[in-house]
């Protein structure tokens, strides 16, 4: 599976880092990966706040990642620096551009697909993911199945990525929290509770759903740009159907009533295959079992509304009937 390749790669990367690392117990690469998982979880959660099951996150993640990989390897002006390291401003610019490009694509596609409802929307977005994957695979610039290699590094080791990933996650979580008390967030909650009633109350449901979709895409695109540098290599398989389901699992297992749910789900489920590494090849079977049994044992996810109530409404979405 694709996540295996990512993890294997990340492990190789910091196998070479460990010499420089001060604390060998802390696996910085894994931490960054977990943060990327949490970011993608929030990206799936955002349309869900408006009741829309979109699985398009990997498509936007792939678009952002491919853009960053292409810009940093093909555009010499971005990489010019005295110390031979990829300049930080260029890296940040790519993270921004990845989000913008993904957002524009979402604006274009969202108008069309958001007319669909429920499972039809989910399947249309899977179709989008597959179309984007094959398009990137056939893009002559993007290196086909092998992909783009040697993406330049703005940091000396994996630990350097912790700060930008954390900052992006904090920004995303803060925005979700802010949304709850903003007209847009309330409109999203109203649509989730009852789309028809929301429309009757005068909420522009199309614009609201589109906003949620675009926000989700921007976050996924920026995350992709960050991930492309972190992983050092990028190919079309980074955004595939598997990722659609894995990221949905982040939200379902974490809990879909607050942004805290997808963050917890993303952190835990990204770490899990890595923590299971000692059991060897059986770990993917065990990972499947967790996905199979998780929703049966925790139908509301780990972060349940009751739990949120107890910790003081922190990160809680508007109570729903």
């Amino acid at each position: 599976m694709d996540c295996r390749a990512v993890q294997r790669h990340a492990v190789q990367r910091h196998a070479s880092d460990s010499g420089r690392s001060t604390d060998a117990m802390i696996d910085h690469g894994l931490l960054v990966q977990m943060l990327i998982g949490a970011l993608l979880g929030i990206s799936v959660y955002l349309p869900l706040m408006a009741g829309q099951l979109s699985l398009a996150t990997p498509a936007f993640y792939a678009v952002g990642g491919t853009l960053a990989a292409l810009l940093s390897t093909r555009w010499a002006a971005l990489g010019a620096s005295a110390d031979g390291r990829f300049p930080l401003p260029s890296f940040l610019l790519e993270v921004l551009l990845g989000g913008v490009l993904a957002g524009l694509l979402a604006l274009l596609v969202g108008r069309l697909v958001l007319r669909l409802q429920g499972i039809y929307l989910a399947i249309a977005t899977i179709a989008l993911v597959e179309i984007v994957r094959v398009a990137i695979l056939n893009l002559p610039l993007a290196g086909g199945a092998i992909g783009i290699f040697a993406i330049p590094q703005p940091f000396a080791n994996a630990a350097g990525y912790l700060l930008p990933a954390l900052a992006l996650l904090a920004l995303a979580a803060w925005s979700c929290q802010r949304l709850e008390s903003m007209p847009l967030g309330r409109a999203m909650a109203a649509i989730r509770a009852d789309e028809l009633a929301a429309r009757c109350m005068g909420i522009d449901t199309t614009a609201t759903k589109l906003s949620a979709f675009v926000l989700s895409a921007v976050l996924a695109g920026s995350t992709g740009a960050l991930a492309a540098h972190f992983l050092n290599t990028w190919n079309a398989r980074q955004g595939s159907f598997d990722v659609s389901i894995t990221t949905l699992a982040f939200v379902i297992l974490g809990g879909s009533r607050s942004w805290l749910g997808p963050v917890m789900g993303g952190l835990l489920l990204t770490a899990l295959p890595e923590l299971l590494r000692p059991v060897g090849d059986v770990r993917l079977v065990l990972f499947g079992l967790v996905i199979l049994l998780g929703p049966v044992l925790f139908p509301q996810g780990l972060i349940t509304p009751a739990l949120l109530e107890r910790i003081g409404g922190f990160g809680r979405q508007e109570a729903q009937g």
Partner: protein
Amino acid sequence: MDVLLQTLLNGAAAGGVYALVALGYTLVFSVLGVINFAQGALFSLGGYLTYLLMGGHISVSGGLPGWGLPIALPFAAALLLAAAGAALLSLLVERLAFAPLRRRNAEPLLSLITSLGAGLVLVNLLQLLMGAEGYAFPAGSLAGLPAVVSLGGARIRSVQVLLLLICAAVVLLLTLWLEGSRGGRALRAVAEDPTTARLLGIDSDAMVRLAFLLSGALAGLGGGLVGVSVSLPGPYFGIGYGLKGLTVLVLGGLGSVPGAIAGGLLMGLAEAMVPSGASGWRDALAFAILFVVLLLRPTGLLGRRLVEKV
């Protein structure tokens, strides 16, 4: 002309397999209103079971290198047994991934995740047992059948004809059964309205199990047929067919049997028409067609229009 005939037949054969997978989804969707993502894994299972039942051995990278069943069945028997095996496993998937959620009236969304989890477990168990690389069926698997037949000047692989015929027969039988038999009508009654069906004395839980049993058998058949006509490229190969089947399902309209058949044929033929120069794009074609169709007709080609009720 020969090339056209060949292309059409290839497309129809592929389309027949897509239709089998889509019909499997349709059966489950019509009674439960959910999609069983384990379908692709059952497809893989069907292929590998057929291989083993025909006397195939596990390769060196598998969990039991060199091991094989002590029997070597002819293709027809192996295919039927493999379909039965996939059907039984499909029942197990229902028991583990769907029944507990249904008992608790959980969100239908959850079963997307649980069924995919079941599929992941199955595919990775297959990978542990059989290894990651592909298997080809031994030459002469279809004893007594010439490899190539000549039809109106076109040379056609006979296995493609066989595949098309089997798919057509299965689809026909299933349709007749659904339309005419008592069990088929009971199944359709549950699909129409589970509560009323229960009041009429139909055991709707048994019908749900029947739907899973049949859909598993369809997936198993599809896997065995693709295995013998092409090869088994690795345990994940069913997932790709599962996804294509999903697009066919939506293309034809969720829950529509004629839609699944028409959608499958359309998809297979469209893929076969892709010129070899653009074969890299072939995998996107199915999804591109789906995308366009959904935008023009949001409930699929032959689906019912949904009326929103207040």
